[in-house]
């Protein structure tokens, strides 16, 4: 019982910690154009596993916020929606990376 509560609590905190980092990872990876499935594979290859059901809605949300741009294009005889970082997205990513590095440095000093 205690172990279950402990693991549930850890899982919730882990997800909370990951949420912001995922956005940075997705924005950074989309400095190069990708479609959904290819992006997921690219992130996984770099150790950032992310569920499809999380990634695909996230891409749409980031696009609706103006951080990504997308277009349908044919590749390998198949229509795919390609995403890339928008100009505004690039500015935000720069700021987010600075913020992340500051936070990381602070955490390193604390822990």
């Amino acid at each position, binding site marked *: 019982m205690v172990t279950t509560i402990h693991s549930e609590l850890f899982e919730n905190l882990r997800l909370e910690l990951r949420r912001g980092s995922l956005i940075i990872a997705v924005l950074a990876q989309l400095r190069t154009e990708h*479609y*959904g*499935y*290819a992006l997921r594979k690219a992130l996984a290859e770099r150790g950032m596993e992310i*569920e*499809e*059901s*999380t990634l*695909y*809605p996230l891409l*749409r949300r980031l696009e609706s916020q103006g951080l990504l741009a997308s277009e349908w294009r044919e590749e390998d005889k*198949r*229509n*795919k*929606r390609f995403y890339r970082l928008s100009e505004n997205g690039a500015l935000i990513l720069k700021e987010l990376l600075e913020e992340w590095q500051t936070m990381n440095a602070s955490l390193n000093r604390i822990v």
Partner: protein
Amino acid sequence: MDLLDRYLQAVRTYLPNGQQDDIIKELGENLREQIEDKEAGLGRPVNEEELVAILKQHGLPLLVASRYRQPRYLIGPTLFPQYWLVMKIILAIVAFSYGVAAVVMLAESNPIGQVLAAVFSFAGAVLPIFAWVTIVYAVLDLCNSKFRLMENWSKEWNEKFDPRKLPAVQRTPEGLEAKPISRAKTVFELFWSVAFLLWWLRVAAIRKLALFMTLGPVGLSDKIPFQPGPAANTVFIPVIVLTLVGIAHRIVTLRYPRRATFDAVMRLIVNAGSVPILYLLSRSNEMFALVPGISEPEKFLEPMRIFNLILHYVMMFAAALTLIECFKQARRLIRVRRNTAPAPAL
């Protein structure tokens, strides 16, 4: 690929209108690519089991579709604490009004049926109020999220906010507890103390209600063959005095809910006073007696004896419980006094 199409169709059902085609087209392409990737790894087409595994890993259609929607709630976390407080206040006011109305109706000797009907209409009266308050707060929340009202106001309030204008810290003086005694609990106890007093004073309607609750519909009959016995008459005045002390205690506690010492002392007095009364009643073999002049009294003798025997044990049990309560209150009193004693000088 029939399974894939069925899966996409199921997801589509729950997607936001206007985006369904676009999302399904993209999701379908991504899933097809994933399946092809798997097939390339296996060197053959995926079988049904493998396709099922891929779709299961992708998730339940309802959950998958829900992630494409903005989180929605009727009343959000900003307004919810205020909404909940308003609900509790309304419930307390309506419950108190109904309690008072029921006692007044009984005191005016309204038929029990009418009083019970009035009490049972409580839910019917409360639910529409709750519905209206919920609608008002849902509209407020909608306006808040559309026009960012709280965000704009909080900016304004923050500029005007001056911490120096906050009220002084409330110190806990001697004899008071940091946590106030629950007003709801005090109101509940006050209500029942008054109801008991009216019953003890033989207000006919209250007595009828008590009989109804104890005996069921038989209690409403005008020909109840028993009445309180001589033992009840012996303790008649002490019971009134103790109940009045209890009522005064609750009224003061309602006004000063932090007076823990007062509360503990008063409870100790009432409980200590109740123990000898309960003991006296338990010693009596005739707490209830047959009404004089009743026809065929022998018919009621045995039920009366059993009833008095049960009451005898109930009173003994109640006396023991009240004695335990006395010790609990005494301990509480010592604890409160110790907690509020001034700290020794170093």
